[in-house]
């Protein structure tokens, strides 16, 4: 087979056309990433007067630091919680909307809106709803006999950030699930109905397995989102508290670096995060090439 090749009359045109992308990548990724890599091996004194090159000492310290390990655990709980909650809710919505014939588009539009809300704005929204003094939900929970206070209770705080983070991701997941559901041939569902499977059984034995490639893709995307893209949500709701209970890794990078001024450790933490992203991306591509399940 012959591949069609575009030929440029000017030697420089292709480079010029490529330049914006390359420049953006250089300025916003390669340069900061290498800075972080460099800084992660430096150590500054508290006044920023002296900087020493310490090789991997920052990393060694991190992995010996109980605070850092606790933050890893917090991040894991947060990421798994957010992923599970947003995936299951959006699948539920997608199944319900997919069942509709008439007002399908209307509901789809509504369900997509949260995605357009900036994370920080979403955080403020949830901060108001759950505000222990003026929020509506603590008020209602109190009537049910539950004393909600995410400023004091670690569990409440975690629930709040998971809810706020999951809510934002529902739109995205919903769209993918809806597309996934619509690509399942109707005749399969009909065949299963004739084969004597009721609604619930059909869902778990036919629809859910056939959705597994979508589910897996979304799982990775959601974990990545929860780990790296939720700074705004955390910052606006709990700011990592109470007592580090919601201090996830990305937030810790910011706190240690910009508030604690420990730039070396903060840079080392960023490098670890970068490593995690790379691993997740590789996993995702590997699996998608192989396609899950069938």
């Amino acid at each position, binding site marked *: 087979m012959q591949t069609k090749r575009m030929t440029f009359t000017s030697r420089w045109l292709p480079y010029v056309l490529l330049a914006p992308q390359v420049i953006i990548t250089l300025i916003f990724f390669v340069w900061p990433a290498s800075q972080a890599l460099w800084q992660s091996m430096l150590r500054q004194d508290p006044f920023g007067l002296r900087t020493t090159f310490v090789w991997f000492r920052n990393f060694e310290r991190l992995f010996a630091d109980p605070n850092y390990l606790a933050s890893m655990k917090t991040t894991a709980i947060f990421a798994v919680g957010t992923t599970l909650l947003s995936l299951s809710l959006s699948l539920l919505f997608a199944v319900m909307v997919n069942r509709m014939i008439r007002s399908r588009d209307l509901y789809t539009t509504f369900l997509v809106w949260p995605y357009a809300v900036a994370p920080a704005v979403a955080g403020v929204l949830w901060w108001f709803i759950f505000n222990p003094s003026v929020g509506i939900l603590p008020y209602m929970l109190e009537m049910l006999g539950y004393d909600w206070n995410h400023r004091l209770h670690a569990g409440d705080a975690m629930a709040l950030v998971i809810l706020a983070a999951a809510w934002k991701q529902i739109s995205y997941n919903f769209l993918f699930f809806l597309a996934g559901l619509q690509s399942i041939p109707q005749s399969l569902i009909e*065949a299963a*109905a*004739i*084969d*004597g499977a009721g609604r619930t059984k059909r869902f778990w034995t036919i629809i859910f397995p*056939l959705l597994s490639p979508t589910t897996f893709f979304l799982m990775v995307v959601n974990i990545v989102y929860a780990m790296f893209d939720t700074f705004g949500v955390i910052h606006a709701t709990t700011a990592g508290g109470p007592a580090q209970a919601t201090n996830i890794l990305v937030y810790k990078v910011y706190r240690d670096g910009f508030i604690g001024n420990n730039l070396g450790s903060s840079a080392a933490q960023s490098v670890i995060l970068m490593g995690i992203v790379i691993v997740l991306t590789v996993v995702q591509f590997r699996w998608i090439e192989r396609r899950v399940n*069938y």
Partner: protein
Amino acid sequence: MARIVMEALSKVYPGGVQAVSDVSLDIADGEMIVLVGPSGCGKSTLLRMVAGLERISSGTLSIGDRVVNDLEPAQRDIAMVFQNYALYPHMTVYNNLAYGLRNQGIARPEIDRRVQEAAGMLQIADYLDRKPRALSGGQRQRVAMGRALVREPAAFLFDEPLSNLDAKLRVQMRVEIRQLQKRLGTTSLYVTHDQLEALTMADRLVVLNGGRIEQVGTPMELYHRPETVFVAGFIGSPAMNMIDMAYLRDRGAAPGTLPTGTDLLGVRPDDLRLGDGDGLVLSGTVALLEPAGAESHVYVALDGSGQVVTVRVPGLPDVTEGGVLTLSAPLSALHPFNSASGRRVQ
């Protein structure tokens, strides 16, 4: 094993499309009924109404001795073979066959026995561990058949099950399905738009047109005595020639002793002979000679009107394109129709 009775079944889709109108049919136990008709005439709709996949707008449907109008597909004791096979892509062939049995809560050894038996009958025993995507079209078709077989249902429903196969495989599967159906004696409803499939497989043939039944009968009845112009044109290939009586009268060639009201005369390509004779006599020039192995088709443009009639003759006839020709057909082979009513004149 069951009798299926349709009484005045109608289907109106939401949006107002009347897909099936007033269809009544009594299918005997063990009978193979083939539904034919042009695209969009409501064949699939009717089949899906029997399966329980489409709601019945009006009329009564009974399978066995039960009225099943409001029963779920699973409760109707039927099995269906889909045009695209609708195999579960994430399950092995074995599980595809076993799925329906498991849902019925049948015991494991019995499931295994039935799956093995069906797999043996359909020669798919070697593929039981494979997923459908690792099978050829023909093998998938067999698995789809197997999934219907293992259920041992009261009736089989087929919606163009062979239309995705190549011509040779289609003939082979057609024979196998028919043999299986006869051996098992399961009442079957089979939708196709393939003439030959319809004629060869059916105990009785149902011709649908625009959602209504045109005619019901054995393949031979429909072939030899079509009741409507539509059936006459639809059954048989090449299609029956339709000659206007006005044309024949103008040329003084109208055969005598036809029933009153006849204004359209049908004659099958097989019934026309080259050369003069009794009954209907036509003359024209050869427009095209089409050899087709054991037989040949001669297309003749009639003098005066230029209408092309088809003649089917054995072997290769001694005619040349452009040559003048006389055709004839005996009176007994003519089908008299009235074009206003579209029906046969008695």
